[in-house]
């Protein structure tokens, strides 16, 4: 393919991946399906009954891979067997995936909250009614965007993997990225806003999540509002980077042109890793200087 057209397709893929990352993280924030869910699950056991949607269908990578695979299978059947236009088929495929995800979400929260009856945790039916459509909407967005990424890769950039398999793979990666980045904003900051800013969660505070909102009791949508300001978009940037940079190095130096180009693309990838590493080190240095240590150096005091 012409390098310029490849670059255009790549830009579209990057944009779709960014939306996929952001919506994936926000979906997990509304339903608290993430590592931060461990605290939501723990809270009633520690005596903190809450009104936060508690679903963890599976680990985020597995759950997203399931959604994307269901959506892609549906879409592919519609395209190949019924002759639907791809865009229309992808929308219907995502809708099917969102509905399946919604039903899993309801069974997950019902099961989880019912199992905590002994800790006096109620099942709020209005919470399920108000949150499940939001979860489904984000699931729809994630599935659709991941399918757009995979579709463009398979049919425009000529990636050899079958469409459904590629959707499954990107589903695992988007879950993995979302779980590793955006969830930190929910788990370490939003759930523990009552504790001092600028510290990790003290183990003794485990389960003591914030349960009161600006008005009334805090729910998953309050968490979504907060995380959509930083954690969600950052997850989008992260997944966008993973998809874009990983493909960009193969477009700039196309291995089809020879082994030299293949090696150059690998070297370019290594340069990206090193540059991001230097940036990481720079942030480490900057935060150490700005935030300062938590404890005094007792050893130096004694010697002084």
């Amino acid at each position, binding site marked *: 393919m012409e390098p310029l057209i490849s670059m255009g397709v790549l830009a579209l893929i990057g944009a779709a991946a960014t939306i996929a990352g952001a919506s994936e993280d926000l979906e997990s924030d509304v339903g608290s399906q*993430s*590592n*931060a869910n*461990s605290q939501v699950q723990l809270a009633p056991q520690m005596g903190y009954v809450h009104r936060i949607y508690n679903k963890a269908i599976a*680990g*985020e*990578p597995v759950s997203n891979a399931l959604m994307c695979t269901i959506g892609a299978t549906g879409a592919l059947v519609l395209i190949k067997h019924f002759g639907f236009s791809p865009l229309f088929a992808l929308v219907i495929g995502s809708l099917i995936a969102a509905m399946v995800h919604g039903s899993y979400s309801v069974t997950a929260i019902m099961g989880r909250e019912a199992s905590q009856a002994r800790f006096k945790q109620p099942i709020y039916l209005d919470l399920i009614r108000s949150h499940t459509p939001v979860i489904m909407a984000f699931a729809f967005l994630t599935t659709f965007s991941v399918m757009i990424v995979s579709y463009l890769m398979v049919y425009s950039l000529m990636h*050899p993997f079958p469409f459904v398999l590629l959707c499954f*793979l990107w589903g695992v*990666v988007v*879950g*993995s990225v979302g*779980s*590793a980045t955006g969830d*930190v*904003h*929910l*788990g*370490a900051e939003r759930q*523990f806003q009552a504790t001092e800013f*600028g*510290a*990790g*969660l*003290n183990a003794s505070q*485990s389960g003591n999540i914030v349960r009161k909102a600006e008005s009334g009791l805090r729910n998953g949508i309050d968490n979504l509002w907060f995380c959509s300001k*930083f954690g969600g978009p*950052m997850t989008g*940037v*992260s997944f966008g*980077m*993973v998809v874009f940079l*990983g493909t960009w190095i*193969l477009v700039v130096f*196309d*291995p*089809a042109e*020879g*082994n030299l180009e*293949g*090696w150059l693309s*690998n070297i370019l*990838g*290594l340069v*990206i*890793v090193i540059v*991001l*590493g230097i*940036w*990481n*080190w720079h*942030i*480490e*240095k*900057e*935060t*150490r200087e700005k*935030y300062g240590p*938590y404890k005094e*150096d007792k050893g130096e005091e004694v010697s002084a």
Partner: protein
Amino acid sequence: MIDIVGLIASNLIWILAIVIGGTLISISVHFIPVGGAPAAMAQATGIGTGTVMLAAGAGIAGIIAAGAVMAVNQNIWVVIGAAAVGAAVMLAATMIVATWIYAYGVGVMPVSAKVKYDPITKYRQDLYVSQGTEGHGIPTVAYVSASIGGLLGGLGAGLAYYALMKVSTLPVTNLNLVAVVSTFTIGFFFINSVIPSYNIVGTIEGFHDPKFKKWPKAAIASFLASIPLGILAVVAVASLASVGGL
């Protein structure tokens, strides 16, 4: 009747490549700083997700890159290099964004709780660990360790993918062959990243963590597990190809 012994004998070199790939994946997982659920609460150093999921996410990014390259260039070093770099780029992009969130969203600096001084930057660590936590964020040593882990894991996955693609004489763009081989490689990656998680038990910070010393046990276990897996995969792919199933 398919001559299974003959298939194994003629593909011994590829079985060996798969076994080496599995062992590399197993070793690589020890390098990746996995913080698990505690890291999501800034309660432990590392990337805030589970061992297998993170390693698999990186390995899969590597397999996607290897697949794209293998379709157009069959030089073994270019293919496995692309897999290694694909996995490392995935981890790098995840780690830098996680660092932004730790630094600007949570307000903590990257710090390790397992060593007093970072072996690479020589920064003092223990004073910067907030109370009641086992460190937080991704300090430079963990970043370097994760990059090595990504490269090794991708290398292993790429090697297994390449070896299985070469078992049959079918063209590398055959969709059925690609589907079977990539599915096997992913399963293979999952198996070999589950084995080391018994060493890691939740969290590890990288090569400076005391748990890292246990890697030979997992490497041996993965080596042994990869032998029957490699034989099964080679026999399955080669016999499917020979009877026209692909």
